[in-house]
C-alpha cells in the first residue's frame, strides 16, 4: 500500500511529487513533533530522558543500517563494530589531538566512513549470504582490533570521553545532552530523507530492486554498493560517537555481535526501506527490554517468579524477547511497524468507507 492521495489532488510538477511533506498539515505535524520533543526535558524524569537519549543515538545508527539493508539490499551483520569504532574514534580525536568534541563527532563519522569503505570494497563484489558472512567476519575482526589497539581504544579497559561542549557551555547532564542528540537526530533524518529524493538515492533503490536492470540503465553497481556501505558507516560512526560522549566512557564490551543483531532487529521491526520505520523500530527495541524489566518487577515475589527465577535471569529474558520479536515480526508482519502505521492512517482517512 502506497500513500493515499485524496481525489482531485493532482501533482503538476515533478518537484511537487517528490516533496518531503505532501501537505501543509503533515509538515506542521512534523514540526510540532520536534517542538514537543524539545520540551521533553522540562517534564520528563531522568529515567525516561536517558531512554530517549538512547533511542536518539541508536536510531541514527539504525537509520544508517536501513540505508544499507533496506534501500540498497546489502545485508550487514557487523554494524555494531562500526558503531563501536565511531564511539572510540571521537574520544581518541578529542583526547589526543585536543579537537573540540563538537567537531570530533563528525570527524569520527568520517573516520568510520573510511573504515566502512575498506570493508565495503570486498562487499561490493558480494551479495546475499556471502556478504552476510563477510560482514560477520568484519564484526569479529574489528571487535578484536578494538580490544587490542591500546593506543586507540585503551584496550579492554576502555577509554574516557570528554563531555560535549559548545562555546564554553558544557552539555554534561541528561537534560542538556538531550538537545545535542535531538539536533543530530533531526539533521541526520532530514539528510537521509533528502538523500532518497536525489539521483543517488534512487540509484540505491534501483540496485536493490533489480541490480541487473540497474546496471543496464547505467548505474555503476560497485560505486553505489560501496557508497551505501560508506554512508551506513558514517551514520554508525555518528551514533557511536554520540553514545561515547553521553556515557563519557566507552569499552569494547558494549559493541558485540548482539548489538549488531539488535540493529538488524530494529530495522526489521520498524520496516525495511522506511526512514521513519528506523525510528519506530528503535523505539520498540529500546522499550522492549524495559517492558520485560517492568513485567519482571510486577511478578516479583509471586509464585511464577519463584518457579522460574525471573529476577536473576532478566538479561536472558531480554535477549529471548529480542530474538522472539525478530522471528514473530518476520513471520507475521514482514513489512514492519511503518506498514502498520500506514494502514492505521489509511483507516482514519477512509473512515467510515474503508472499502
Amino acid at each position, binding site marked *: 500500500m502506497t500513500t493515499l492521495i485524496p481525489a482531485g489532488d493532482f501533482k503538476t510538477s515533478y518537484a511537487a511529487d517528490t516533496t518531503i511533506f505532501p501537505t501543509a498539515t503533515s509538515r506542521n505535524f512534523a514540526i510540532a513533533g520536534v517542538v514537543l520533543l524539545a520540551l521533553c526535558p522540562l517534564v520528563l524524569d531522568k529515567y525516561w530522558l536517558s531512554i530517549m537519549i538512547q533511542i536518539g543515538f541508536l536510531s541514527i545508527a539504525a537509520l544508517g543500517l536501513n540505508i544499507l539493508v533496506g534501500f540498497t*539490499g546489502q545485508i550487514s551483520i557487523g554494524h555494531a563494530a562500526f558503531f563501536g569504532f565511531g564511539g572510540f574514534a571521537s574520544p581518541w580525536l578529542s583526547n589526543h589531538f585536543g579537537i573540540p568534541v563538537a567537531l570530533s563527532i563528525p570527524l569520527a563519522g568520517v573516520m568510520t566512513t573510511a573504515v566502512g569503505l575498506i570493508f565495503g570494497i570486498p562487499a561490493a563484489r*558480494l551479495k546475499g549470504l556471502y556478504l552476510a558472512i563477510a560482514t560477520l567476519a568484519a564484526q569479529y575482526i574489528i571487535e578484536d582490533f578494538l580490544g587490542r589497539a591500546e593506543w586507540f581504544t585503551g584496550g579492554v579497559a576502555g577509554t574516557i570521553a570528554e563531555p560535549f561542549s559548545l562555546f564554553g557551555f558544557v552539555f554534561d547532564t541528561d537534560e542538556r545532552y538531550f538537545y545535542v542528540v535531538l539536533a543530530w537526530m533531526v539533521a541526520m533524518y532530514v539528510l537521509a530523507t533528502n538523500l532518497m529524493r536525489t539521483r543517488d538515492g534512487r540509484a540505491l533503490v534501483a540496485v536493490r530492486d533489480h541490480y541487473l536492470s540497474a546496471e543496464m540503465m547505467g548505474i555503476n553497481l560497485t560505486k553505489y554498493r560501496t557508497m551505501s556501505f560508506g554512508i551506513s558507516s558514517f551514520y554508525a560512526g555518528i551514533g557511536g560517537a554520540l553514545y561515547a560522549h553521553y556515557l563519557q566512557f566507552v569499552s569494547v564490551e558494549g559493541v558485540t555481535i548482539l548489538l549488531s*543483531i539488535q540493529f538488524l532487529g530494529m530495522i526489521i521491526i520498524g520496516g525495511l526501506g522506511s526512514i521513519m520505520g528506523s525510528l519506530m523500530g528503535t523505539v520498540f527495541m529500546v522499550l522492549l527490554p524495559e517492558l520485560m524489566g517492568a513485567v519482571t518487577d510486577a511478578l516479583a515475589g509471586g509464585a511464577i517468579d519463584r518457579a522460574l527465577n525471573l529476577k536473576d535471569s532478566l538479561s536472558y529474558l531480554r535477549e*529471548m524477547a529480542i530474538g*522472539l520479536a*525478530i522471528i514473530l515480526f518476520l513471520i507475521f508482519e514482514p513489512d514492519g511497524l511503518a506498514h502498520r502505521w500506514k494502514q492505521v492512517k489509511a483507516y482514519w482517512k477512509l473512515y467510515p468507507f474503508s472499502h
Partner: protein
Amino acid sequence: MNTELLGQLLINGIVVGALYGVVAMSFVLIYKASQVVNFAQGEFLLIGAWTCWWLLTKWQLPFIWGFGFTLVFMTLFGLLLQVVVLRPMIGEPIISVIMVTIGLSIFFQALMKWMFGVFAQPFPPIFETGQVDVLGLRIQTVYVMSLGISVVIMAVFAWFFKFSRMGLAMRATAFNQQVAQSLGISVRTVFALSWAISAVVSSVAGVVVAVVNGVSSALSFYGIKVFPAVILGGLDSVVGAVLGGLIVGLLENFAHFLDAEYLNWGNMYQVAPFYVLIVILMIKPYGLFGTKDIERV
C-alpha cells in the same frame, strides 16, 4: 621450536577440525536441501549437549540411554523448527531467512542460559582411563572417541547420500526442486528431514565436545566457526565442508602455536579463521569445491 607442543596442537587441530567438519557438513546439508543459511547451527550443538547433560545428571540415566533420548529429542526438535518457523519463510527474500535463523540463534542461546546457567558444567566421565599412548604421544581417550565418532558420521553421510533412497531424493531436490517434485519426491518431507538430520548430527558433535570440554554456552561458537569452514570448502559441497573444517581446525591451532611461540598477541586462534575468510571471499568466493553461480538474465 617446541616440537611437543606442535605435535599436541597438530592432534588438537585434527580432532577439532573433524568436529568442525561434522558441523559444517550438517550446515551444508540444510543449505543444499532448502537453500537456508542456518545461523543457528551452533545452538543445535548447545541444545543437544545440555539435553544430554540434563538426562545424565538429573535423571542419572546410563550414557547410552541418555544419548539415545537426546537423538530422538533433537530429531523432533529439528522437524518442529522447520515446520513451525522455516516453512512460512519459503519464498521470502534471503535477508529475511537469514534474520529468522539469527533470531532463533539468540533466542535459544538465551533460553539455554536461563535454564542451565552461564557456568560450564562438567560431563560425567564416560571412560575409565583418561589417556592412551599413540605413537609416543599421550592423547586423551575422549579425543580418540571424538575422532572416531566424526569419521563414523562422515562415513554414514557418504553412504546415505550415495545409496539410500531418501538420500538420493535429497540430492535430487538440491539439484532441481521442480524436477524432483514432478518425479514424485515430497519436497516438504525432504526439507523437514534435512533439518532433522542436521539437528541430530550437530547434537552428536555437541555431546562429543561437551564430553571433552564440559557444557557451556561457548559451544554455540562452533556455529560461527562453521562459516570459515564452509566458505573455504564451498557452500554447497559436503566433501568441501569436511576438508574446510579440517583446514580451519589445523589453521586455528597453528595460529595458536605461532602466537604462543613468537608473536604473543593473544587470542589469535579465535580471529585467524575470519581473516582467512575475508581473503577467500575476495579471491575465490565459491570456495575449493563449490559450484560457481552463473547468473542469466
